[in-house]
């Protein structure tokens, strides 16, 4: 009797401690989830705070007098004359009109440095297309130099103004007040390829490169993945060979992606002599890389088709292949599509193997075909992120936002498809 009571006593006494432990354990769990979610939020916040300025461009709008004497240009259609002409002079003159206090060659040179590197070629383009505009006054919008752009976007933050002299900062402030320097949506970002000059660089080339690469990947990995899954689920005899294939697929799914880059380098480029940096090779490598993912998810989709469907079809005299083609594959299609989209999203964000097959080249032109040199979005982000210029860091974050938008929409599509089409048996 006493023994029992004392035991109950012990339990009751320990209860408080045990409940405390229980609460603490629960707290640890919540803390873990909180840390994970907080890192996600920090990551997004960091990228958005770094990259939102990448969507803004800084322009200088000026009434430029295209004075033939100032430019030493009489005939804009003459390439020889154009190569000798001074296209910067009229822009600087127009700037000087806005800032009358600027005087002397040195100050004028400083003033010219506010302009983007390609301002001169903007004038020359205008004149090539419309030679009759020589000696008239035109309102032209120039891209400001990256240094000006960074200064304007981070107004008031001394960390970002160090690249401009104090005089230049005063000029920029004055021009901002007059509305000559202005900011607007950065359409350059979506209409151009890479450039040495942050203000002139865009992600269009990388987006098109990614698209071409993904098309190759999809064209190979989707049909092959489904065929392999169908074979393994429906036709494969139970033997050593089938086991071997399965083990291989499972292991490939866990092989580090950079190894696929080595494969691409040694086989596609080394052995088959394919060119470097082209979407076809990139697509092939990524296709091999995503195949296991697609096969594994397609197999799960095929497995979820109930056997009654197969039996019913066989019962009315369909051959095994007819059962598969007419019933199993259509019914498993939503699951296969979902798996493939997720696999493609993975491939879209993959960088490491593409570094090895040379898709890191500096490519200005927007690729026009599967055999053109190209780069892809994640590699472009890598290239820009490795640059020390603030303008490129902004662009890299902006490109990350573009990439994440693509990936989130792909995943959302996959989720929508699954919700919409998936049948529960």
């Amino acid at each position, binding site marked *: 009797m006493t023994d029992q009571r004392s035991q109950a006593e012990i339990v009751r006494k320990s209860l408080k401690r045990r409940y405390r432990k229980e609460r603490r354990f629960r707290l640890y769990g919540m803390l873990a989830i909180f840390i*994970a979610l907080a890192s996600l939020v920090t990551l997004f916040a960091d990228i958005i705070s770094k990259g939102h300025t990448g969507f803004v461009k800084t322009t200088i709008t000026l009434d430029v007098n295209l004075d033939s004497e100032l430019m030493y240009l009489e005939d804009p259609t003459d390439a020889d004359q154009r190569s000798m002409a001074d296209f910067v002079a009229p822009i600087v003159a127009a700037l000087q009109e806005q800032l009358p206090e600027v005087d002397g060659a040195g100050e004028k040179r400083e003033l010219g440095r506010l302009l983007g590197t390609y301002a001169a070629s903007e004038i020359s383009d205008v004149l090539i297309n419309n030679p009759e505009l020589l000696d008239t006054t035109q309102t032209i919008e120039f891209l400001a130099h990256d240094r000006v752009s960074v200064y304007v976007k981070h107004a008031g933050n001394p960390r970002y103004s160090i690249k401009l002299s104090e005089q230049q900062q005063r000029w920029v402030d004055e021009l901002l007040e007059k509305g000559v320097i202005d900011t607007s949506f950065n359409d350059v970002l979506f209409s151009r390829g890479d450039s040495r000059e942050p203000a002139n660089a865009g992600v269009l080339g990388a987006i098109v490169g990614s698209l071409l690469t993904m098309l190759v990947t999809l064209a190979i990995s989707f049909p092959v993945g489904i*065929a*392999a899954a169908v074979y393994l689920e429906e036709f494969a005899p139970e033997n050593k060979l089938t086991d071997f294939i399965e083990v291989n697929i499972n292991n490939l799914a866990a092989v580090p992606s950079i190894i696929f880059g080595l494969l691409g380098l040694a086989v596609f480029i080394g052995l*088959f002599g394919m060119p470097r940096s082209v979407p076809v090779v990139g697509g092939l490598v990524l296709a091999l890389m995503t195949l296991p993912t697609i096969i594994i998810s397609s197999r799960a989709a095929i497995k979820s088709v109930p056997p009654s469907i197969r039996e019913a079809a066989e019962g009315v005299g369909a051959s095994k292949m007819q059962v598969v083609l007419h019933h199993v594959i259509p019914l498993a299609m939503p699951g296969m599509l979902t798996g493939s989209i997720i696999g493609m999203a993975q491939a*879209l964000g993959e960088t*490491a193997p593409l570094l090895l097959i040379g898709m890191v080249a500096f490519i200005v032109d927007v690729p026009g075909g599967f055999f053109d040199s190209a780069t892809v979005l994640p590699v472009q982000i*890598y290239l820009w992120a490795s640059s020390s210029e603030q303008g490129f860091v902004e662009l890299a974050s902006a490109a990350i936002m573009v990439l994440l938008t693509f990936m989130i929409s792909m995943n959302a599509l996959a989720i929508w498809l699954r919700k919409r089409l998936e049948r529960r048996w």
Partner: protein
Amino acid sequence: MQTANLLPLVLVLAVVAYGLAYMRSRAVAAPLGGIRNLKALPFYYAARAALWCAIPALIVLATWAGFEGKIIQGIVIATLPPDTWPESPGQASLILSQISNVAAGKLNPEFVPEHIAGAASVLEAMESRSENFKATLVLLIAVLGGTFAWTRVAPHINARKNVETTLRRIFFVCAALAVLTTAGIVFSVFFETVRFFNRVPITEFLFGTSWSPQTALRADQVGSDGAFGVIPLFTGTLLISAIALLVAVPIGLLSAIYLSEYASKRMRSTIKPVLEMLAGIPTVVYGFFAALTVAPFIRDLAGLVGMEASSQSALAAGLVMGIMIVPFVSSLSDDVINAVPQTMRDGSLALGATQSETMKKVIFPAALPGIIGGILLAASRAIGETMIVVMAAGLAANLTANPLESVTTVTVQIATLLVGDQEFDSAKTLSAFALGMLLFIVTLLLNVVALKIVRKYREQYD
């Protein structure tokens, strides 16, 4: 004609073959009293014709396109005067790129030696001849195949069987591609590795403690032979992976436990996908975050407490990598925790244990093998991760265990050694393949062991 144009053309031919065979099967069936007197439906006769048309032609096309470049290069080199034959593969690729630049019109023929200009015209002629020949051959095979199948449209032939057998074989080939890929990986890495070990002894590679792969361009340069000891790379990899696991395992495990045991259904279904987003974010984004935000933050923080941290510290890369593999650990642990039978849980709770005691004393020990398997898989992922370390970890091979210092990893070295132009036969380039081999073997072993543990554990409760 180029491969890119030939491919759609063959497919068009296949569609034509399909249509013709379909019509013919109907025509054949009509006098017999309709298609039910055929052994197979018209679709199958048509599909067979399309397969006969496309498959042999595509096989020939793929083989040709795969090897034409190499064979033409060999022939072009052979046409060079014997005294200008390249002595090394590096020289050969130099000469070849000169020749192809001249042929493509990027380089003025007057600027290069006469034999190269000559070879360029040979190259051009060979290429155009090869293209013409390829186009003729492929189209001929396609037409012949289609015609053959077209003539074999007859009521007594069971085309369905043919088509189904062929499809089945195609499916098998697709599945076997996985084996081919593995073989491709092994052989592509293996041969270069063997070549590497011909120059650098395998013992020096495995047990050397210094890594500086810079080999000199000229033989007489100072410090001309690099050091290829993999130990500092390996410790660097292990250091970063260990930091990553120290972050990922507690967070992943605890959040999995909380979500599976405590959280309401609604909380679970909202938080789980959000956590999984962490796994979907491209690694280059993590790399960016690690290099531009976390690393400077850690450096400043260390500076505040009076320690010195490198701006490319192992800690930054490890922390961010840890966050990246959290969902990986949590979804694997979730699986194994859910695999523990409900009866064990109920038994423990019925004896009066609290939920956390049940978790710690009953479920966790039961799930331990599975969890260890999951951790091993996560480790293999951390070891093979490239972009975060390329962007946030350093290049210098320091042999250190201090997480605030900069270390380099196997993957970083592979990437940096192989990015850009490289000659295929320098020890520097080859060493990247040896590192790749090492990485492949290590991750493979980890995966095999992990999967074995996980499978054994599952069988235990099935």
